[in-house]
């Protein structure tokens, strides 16, 4: 019979199913006759449940960024996986003018191969559709040659990367849809797309991941319309520290006076009422904001924003100077 002390040390391994057959048998027999050890087993089970609670789930945006970075790095590393340097690889190097230690003859071979590909390509063109017809390798347009290689029938196989549209639909709760939306909200080229996307995300700002994206848009988007839209979405969460911090940043560094005015309104909303009901607490809570407003007064050039700021400072009986 196992002693209680020994059994206690084996409970975690029992729960993991990592005791040997004999060990498990001995522990089970002991537990049948020992209420204290059964209680200890239950405590160990609770502890295991508690362990689960500290596991961190990486946000979808981090996963997405990681995939993007990896894709870029892999693209820079091409030609990739195969370390076999056969005649074909060397020929490709010569075609793409990659540095090669094999002298100039390969370039001649490469040029010959280019003619061959052109010939075979022209013969294949009718089957490939009008967009391929007449396309040269040097001018692929929306198509890009990813790789070329020998085909099974003795011809050439060319893999093309093509820009194509695809319609994806799903619910807002769908993780794939969310990942796409979070990506679209940061699209560097299309402010209209960002505006629409931020508008959709505003309805889902209760999740911290979406809020982070809205905060990112508020702080970094070059388009004031998108920033303003993001601020709208964050309005219900103005009491959250990260949102207040972002709004404080807008107040001090956003170049658009409309944005600064909105930030003042959001950061000080309800200030008058709470000052009446809970004066000490309200002033305490908003001391940072008062300091920020005083800092703003030192540098603000826009008369309207100054007026709004001064009005708030008067409301809380604070001076318009930095303390």
């Amino acid at each position, binding site marked *: 019979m196992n002693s209680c002390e020994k059994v206690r040390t084996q409970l975690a391994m029992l729960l993991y199913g*990592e005791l040997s057959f004999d060990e498990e048998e001995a522990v089970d027999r002991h537990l049948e006759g020992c209420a204290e050890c059964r209680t200890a087993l239950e405590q160990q089970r*609770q502890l295991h449940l508690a362990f689960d609670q500290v*596991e961190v*789930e990486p946000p979808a945006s981090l996963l997405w960024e990681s995939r993007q970075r990896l894709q870029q790095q892999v693209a820079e*590393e091409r030609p*990739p*996986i195969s*370390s076999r340097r056969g005649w074909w690889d060397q020929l490709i190097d010569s075609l793409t003018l990659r540095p090669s230690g094999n002298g100039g003859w390969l370039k001649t071979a490469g040029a010959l191969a280019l003619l061959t590909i052109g010939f075979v390509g022209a013969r294949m063109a009718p089957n490939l559709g009008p967009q391929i017809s007449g396309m040269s390798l040097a001018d692929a347009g929306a198509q890009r040659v990813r790789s070329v290689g020998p085909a099974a029938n003795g011809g050439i196989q060319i893999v093309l990367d093509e820009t194509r549209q695809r319609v994806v639909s799903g619910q807002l709760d769908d993780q794939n849809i969310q990942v796409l939306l979070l990506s679209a909200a940061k699209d560097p080229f299309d402010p209209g797309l960002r505006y629409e996307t931020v508008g959709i995300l505003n309805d889902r700002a209760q999740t911290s991941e979406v809020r982070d994206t809205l905060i990112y848009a508020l702080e970094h988007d070059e388009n004031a319309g998108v920033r303003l839209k993001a601020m709208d979405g964050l309005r219900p969460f103005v009491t959250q*520290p990260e949102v207040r911090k972002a709004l404080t940043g807008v107040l001090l560094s956003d170049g658009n006076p409309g944005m600064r005015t909105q930030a003042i309104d959001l950061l000080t909303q309800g200030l008058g009422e709470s000052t009446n009901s809970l004066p000490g607490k309200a002033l305490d809570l908003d001391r940072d904001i008062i300091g920020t407003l005083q800092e703003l007064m030192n540098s603000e050039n826009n008369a309207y924003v100054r007026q709004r700021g001064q009005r708030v400072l008067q409301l809380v009986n604070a001076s318009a100077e930095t303390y």
Partner: protein
Amino acid sequence: MAQTAGIQAEEKALIRAAQEGDQDAFGQLVRAYDKSVLRLAMNLLRSPEDAQDVYQEAFLRVYRNLNSFRFDCSFHTWLYRIVTNLCLDHMRKRKVRREGSSQIEGSDGPVDRMDTFQESRADGDPQRSLFSGELRQGIKKALSELTVRERMVFELRHYQGMKLRDIGETLGTTEEAAKNCLFRATQKMRVALGDFV
């Protein structure tokens, strides 16, 4: 069993295609494993930046060396060997630099920046009510006080759900050594957290 065999065959085909330069096949392999790799790195290193570095380096190594993969072990084991080695390097360097903490200075004193990330199984769990913030901090502290190897084995067993045999294979040791490591880790955790439960 038949389904597992089917998945294994599918993975094998993907690996072979990727070895022959099929970028899409490589992408599919990445997507099959990258979430759990990122989660492992994030939980071990408690820093999104370091986790992302490990992610990049691990998959780049896979990309560069996939041709030398000879199916002597499972792809999962091979990948995790790379990932765990990278994480162990990070953790050891950090121990040397005494930068084990992910705490940053907040307006109300030090806060753990990882607390801003979603904890995976918290929502909708009936046990949540039993779970106190104090216990959470206690667990984090106890985890941070494990040795680097104990921490790794505990992570792989408890959070990644790997069996000790696979953990041993991944870490280049025996199942018995991994078992001893897990045993020490769980004993330390039990002693450190015994008062909470």
